[in-house]
């Protein structure tokens, strides 16, 4: 920790300079550490409760460490035909992966055209697409339900994969990124006689890998966590995705919290793992774009 003059600091530092510290006790770290622990507590209780027996959860004397380690909750929820958590998990995987791939293909191509190509109508299309970023999603809920019903997609995964991929965020995000790429590489390739698709696939896509990964992750997470839309467009127990599925646990198991929270843990593990291995992309993506589920 720097305790003397500013000259010791490298002038190229990106983060804000550290203020002088008066004491050696790292109060900031201690305080933040306690707060971080407080933030972790609900998650830890979820895991601990899911590992208790049904009887223990309703006992008057509660303890954080399960007195009698039990996987009853897990076996109960994985074996229950009316609440097929395994199937919901699979459905969510298919939906979230499917939507991420669809957004990658469709939004990347559109964003490239809007960032780089000049063609009639480009300005109007760009303005329209970007303007819809301001449209509150609630105004689309009812009409999209009717549209999806007319397409015969109610109660099918298409309903939770395709309409959500039409949002303007992906196009906005990638267009911004493509505009920051230098044009010279494409110019050289054009002179070499490469066509537009070849340029797109061999120059733009490889250069954009981090941005594409970020967008895919954000799309996956948003879709995995979406609740309102799948809650209404999916209804058969075996067709649900994980979030609306979980919400039915409350009525199925009332206060059998060991079982309910076992479901919560199962639903959380993939997103937490995905987040931990891809933290940088997720956080950077949010810092640059802003996206709220």
């Amino acid at each position, binding site marked *: 920790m720097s305790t003397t003059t500013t000259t010791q600091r490298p002038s190229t530092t990106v983060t804000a300079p550290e203020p002088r510290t008066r004491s050696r006790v790292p109060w900031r770290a201690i305080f933040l550490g306690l707060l971080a622990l407080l933030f972790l507590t609900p998650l830890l209780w979820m895991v601990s409760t899911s590992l208790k027996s049904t009887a223990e959860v309703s006992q008057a004397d509660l303890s954080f460490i399960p007195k009698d380690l039990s996987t009853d909750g897990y076996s109960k929820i994985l074996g229950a035909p009316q609440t097929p958590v395994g199937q919901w998990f699979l459905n969510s995987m298919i939906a979230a992966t499917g939507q991420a791939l669809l957004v990658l293909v469709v939004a990347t191509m559109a964003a490239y055209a809007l960032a780089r190509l000049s063609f009639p109508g*480009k300005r109007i299309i760009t303005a329209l697409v970007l303007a819809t970023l301001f449209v509150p999603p609630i105004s689309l809920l009812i009409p999209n339900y009717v549209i999806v019903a007319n397409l015969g997609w109610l109660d099918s995964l298409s309903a939770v994969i395709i309409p959500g991929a039409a949002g303007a965020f992906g196009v906005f995000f990638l267009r911004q990124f493509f505009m920051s790429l230098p044009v010279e590489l494409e110019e050289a390739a054009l002179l070499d006689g490469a066509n537009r698709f070849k340029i797109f696939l061999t120059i733009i896509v490889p250069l954009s890998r981090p941005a594409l990964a970020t967008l895919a992750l954000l799309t996956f997470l948003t879709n995995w966590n979406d609740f309102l839309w799948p809650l209404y467009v999916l209804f058969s127990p075996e067709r649900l995705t994980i979030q609306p599925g979980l919400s039915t646990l409350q009525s199925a198991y009332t206060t059998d919290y060991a079982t309910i929270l076992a479901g919560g843990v199962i639903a959380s593990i993939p997103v937490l793992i995905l987040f931990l291995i891809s933290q940088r992309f997720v956080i950077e993506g949010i810092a640059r774009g802003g996206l709220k589920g």
Partner: protein
Amino acid sequence: MATLAPVSASAPPQEKRRGGGRAPSADPAVMRAGLGTALLFVGPYLVLFCTFVLAPIVYGLWISLHTWDFLLPGKPFVGLQNYVDLFTGGSTTSEPFWNSMRATAIFTVLSVPLLMALPLALAVALNKKFRGRNAMRAVFFAPFVLGVAVIGLLWRYLLDPNVGVVNYYLDQLGIDRIPFTTATPWVWLALVVPTIWWTAGYNMVIFLAGLQDISPELYEAAELDGASAWQRFRHVTLPGLRPVTVFVLTITILASANVFGQPYLITQGQPGGETRSAIMEIGEEGLRRFNMGSASAMSTVLTVALLLVSLITLSFLRERTPKEAKR
């Protein structure tokens, strides 16, 4: 479907506001492409965009002009009747709707200040390098990646009046058990606290990004002038974060005003529909009772309200821009 926000704190749009870019004749060769090629690139997205974004905007307004029962063949045109009903006391739709708007407003007013202050404090504290900083950032952000259903089930348990963890500890402290999920004013606590836990890390990440854009020289100069830590925060950090703050404020108000999962799962609208949010009311009216005409009218009113609120918050940004431009 996500609420997507177009303002980027650290990367302002590069093209010029007026004219939207270069005139076609001035385009470099590399930008020229046949209409066919361009259509192949934008076409697939445009089909999706028109079907699931553009058409529904218009279609929703159209539906709101009808008595549109999804399950019945006849959908008679009624003009503005659905809107008139909403604004007439005593109609079947106006009371539940305005109750839900009130609940939404209460939730927004209670949650937004905390969702600004805590993340800002966390971001400032985490902006300094120390061991474990990245791990802490991850911990504060982690709840956000859990879906609202997990948040709902988990907090429903933690706040359960009988077997919940919070009440167990209150009991230990000799405090009477509190019916967090069923009685006012506790229900608001049961909605606001989980929401802060869930989304504070998200706002923190945006604030942290904004802090990177404040020039270190400003802090050095302030320090040379003998400014205290608080003065540096007040006169360097806060003004430097102004655009980011307005951005975070806007998306947070919108997110809070769109609250759905928390009251649906944690309080289930209790007591007596008092915590039923606007989105909850629209969803139940349109997609459970299938009164899509009145539900669409409600959506329109809510949308207009949300747009007005965003315009007002965004105008805070514009007011100060001339001064800011010198930076």
